[in-house]
């Protein structure tokens, strides 16, 4: 069972790596931000799986913290985009 859990965590990690392609290519900031959303949810699942695989329940607490911070990230992104969009275009 542990092997399966670790393999699943590795699979999620590969998903994260594939998401980096989108961060790299863009093209718009919103695309990169949606990749960050992918990172948020995948990291949470990975932490939950690792908490079970390694027998450390504290990792589930870390996952709870991550999921709480996920919404704040996009709120910050929207504020940043509003401040920036006046200067760069034209």
């Amino acid at each position, binding site marked *: 069972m542990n092997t399966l*859990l670790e393999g699943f965590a590795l699979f999620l990690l590969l998903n994260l790596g594939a998401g980096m392609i989108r961060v790299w290519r863009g093209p718009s900031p919103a695309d990169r931000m949606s990749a960050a959303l992918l990172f948020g949810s995948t990291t949470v699942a990975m932490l939950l799986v690792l908490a079970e695989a390694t027998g450390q329940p504290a990792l589930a607490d870390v996952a709870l913290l991550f999921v709480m911070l996920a919404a704040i990230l996009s709120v910050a992104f929207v504020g940043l985009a509003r401040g920036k969009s006046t200067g760069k275009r034209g």
Partner: protein
Amino acid sequence: MSILQVAATILLVLGGFFYFAGTVGLLRFPDVHSRLHALTKADNLGLGLVCLAMALLGGSWRGAAMLLVIWLLGLLAATVSCHLVAQAALEPAAAGDGGSGGEAIAPMGRSYGGADAVTEASAEEADATRRRTGAWPDGSIAEQPAPRRSADTSSGASPADPPTPRGDP
């Protein structure tokens, strides 16, 4: 292997499938809004399935309740994030065309105007996008050409993006 473990394995595999679907959607879909759509829905279903599997494996009610809270918070965060990012993706076109930034949705029919930088290929692409999706607000389309070109010059032609602009150095 007990029956709980079998059930958890099945749930994990299903969850992995949905995560994979979300990642593929993020990489392959043509514009910001469809990417967001694929990502937030599929990933949160995957997260729910993984949470369920972990609750079965963990075997304590306290752990299961916490996983439920994590999943619900994840749903809430994804909903809020999706809405905010989608709105932010619409907005710059309205602001860049001289609007005050107050209107989130620009009127139709402007996607070819204000486009001295739009090449023939990218106009074709915008046309295809409009035909495929019906009535998009022009933000996502008028926005596409310039950044995509700069991305292409840095990374070369990418096989994962079906409509690559032609005629670029």
